[in-house]
């Protein structure tokens, strides 16, 4: 569908996006994940044609030299509209700009305000819309010309829980109609809606693949203990055990990453009983995507310091 080849964007001396290459295949829903400043927005803007890459290119497999914008719907992070128009007028305007006939654009606008849930406000000036309503109008305008690729920049980050739910449901529906690429810095949103993730950090793609694959690849067994008092001495003791790879302290919690989970459980429980540790909580589990996220970010942050 869309191929990015060695895409790079430089602002002055800063590399916002460094040499990224990936394919976006038809009908997939891909989450572009990463902390703030990872280069997600820049990447999306380059695909949408709003920014020109410093090097590399964006190719669309279906359009031979055609205007790529026909096939792309784009929702910016903070969509801005002509505030003097009503929601319906704006949708009609955008539809007409996408070469849709007058009758059809009236019909589409009506349909879409209904679909994104702003039908009550369709005849009100956009200047009176709340943030959530603007976001919904933004999604409606992005899909009005039935694009085959939808680029959504942080579609749910600014929404309240209800709005977030609605938009995620809408995205679930949209998956049937178009290829979705959306950016987010919230892991649960990525876990919920996407088939694939692309994890970006400092302008590079550090991890990609289907959600399941990525999880499996980075899944590590982990035992979590919560203890009373100072956890430092226990942490040090734990690190001396042979099956422990490393530990991580989070307030009263110690995350212990282990190689052999059965052995670890038995040994640790025994140790706790024998030495009478002030145990509050004990859990055997596996690392989540969030741990992966933190790990990747930290790992690379570490590289920067060296």
């Amino acid at each position, binding site marked *: 569908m869309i191929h990015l080849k060695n895409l790079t964007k430089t602002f002055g001396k800063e590399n916002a996006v460094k040499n990224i290459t990936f394919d976006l295949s038809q009908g997939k829903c891909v989450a572009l994940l990463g902390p703030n400043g990872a280069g997600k927005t820049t990447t999306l803007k380059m695909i949408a044609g709003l920014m020109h890459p410093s090097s590399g290119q964006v190719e669309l497999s279906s359009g031979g030299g055609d205007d790529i914008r026909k096939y792309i719907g784009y929702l910016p992070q903070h969509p801005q509209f002509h505030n003097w128009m009503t929601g319906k007028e704006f949708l009609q305007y955008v539809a007409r700009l*996408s*070469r849709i006939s007058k009758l059809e654009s009236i019909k589409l606008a009506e349909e879409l305000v209904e679909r994104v849930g702003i039908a009550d406000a369709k005849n009100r000036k956009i200047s009176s819309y709340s943030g959530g309503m603007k976001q919904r109008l933004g999604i409606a305008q992005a899909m009005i010309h039935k694009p085959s690729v939808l680029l959504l920049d942080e579609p749910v980050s600014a929404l309240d829980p209800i709005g977030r739910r609605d938009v995620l449901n809408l995205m679930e529906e949209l998956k049937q109609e178009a290829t979705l690429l959306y950016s987010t810095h919230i892991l649960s949103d990525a876990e919920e809606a996407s088939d694939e993730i692309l994890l970006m950090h400092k302008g590079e793609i550090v991890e990609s693949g289907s959600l399941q694959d990525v999880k499996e690849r980075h899944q590590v067994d982990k035992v979590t203990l919560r203890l009373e008092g100072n956890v430092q001495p226990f942490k040090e003791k734990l690190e001396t055990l042979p099956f422990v790879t490393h530990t991580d302290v989070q307030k009263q919690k110690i995350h212990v990453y282990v190689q052999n989970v059965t052995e670890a459980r038995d040994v640790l429980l025994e140790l706790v009983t024998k030495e009478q540790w002030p145990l509050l909580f004990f859990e055997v589990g596996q690392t989540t995507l969030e741990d992966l996220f933190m790990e990747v970010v930290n790992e690379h942050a570490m590289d920067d310091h060296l």
Partner: protein
Amino acid sequence: MNMQWMTIYKKECLESARNYKWVWVPLVFILFCIMDPLTTYYLPQILESTGGLPEGAVFDIPTPPAANVFMMSISQINTLGVLVITLITMGTIAGERKSGVAELILVKPVSYTAYVTAKWAAHVTLVLLSIFVGLIASWYYVQLLFGDVSFMYALITAAFYSLYIILVISISLFMNTWTKIPGVVLFLTISIILVLNLITSIFSHLLEWSPTTITSHLPALLRSGEVGQDLWMAALITILLIISLLFGAIQTLKRREIV
């Protein structure tokens, strides 16, 4: 292309209607245009009522010829009017890019040519209409208070002057594609017009057909109705400049990053 062009043109006109530009811009130009005819005519009365003259002083203020008074209206447009024109056009593209609306508009398959020329045409419509209304008002008062000026000649004069005004709009539009800050557009546009005037007056023997010479041909045109060769050439040069500015604006916008 055609459909998009009309869509943008209509949107611009609707926007001007919603912020009442169709009302206040013509009113402002009427004000500029009738100010001089009225104050010139009533000057003796004004002086008398303000009591500015020492007792016994006799001032004989000659009544200027009608054509000269009409030209005063045009020179008002040339200063204050040009400023107003630049003020209303300075944000048309720059403002949309600054606020971020341009991101939504230009990510759709919109032709840059349609985007630029439709906006240009919408502003040309508004401004020319306002200037014509203003000049007709001026003509009416000149006719009433000073004597005969051929309406036909006044129209031809206004038509040639319009070319210069369209050039001003085109300069502003061109500058709109160079910066996102409307204030900078205003500054650059006014500076260019001033520099153009300055250069033309310094090198007047070399630049006989400069667009700013149009205004200097107008008094003769108004009296005789005859379009001299120099005026034709200046008009031609102006039209060519307008076309190149529009072309330049389209090309610049194409190369620009929208955000």
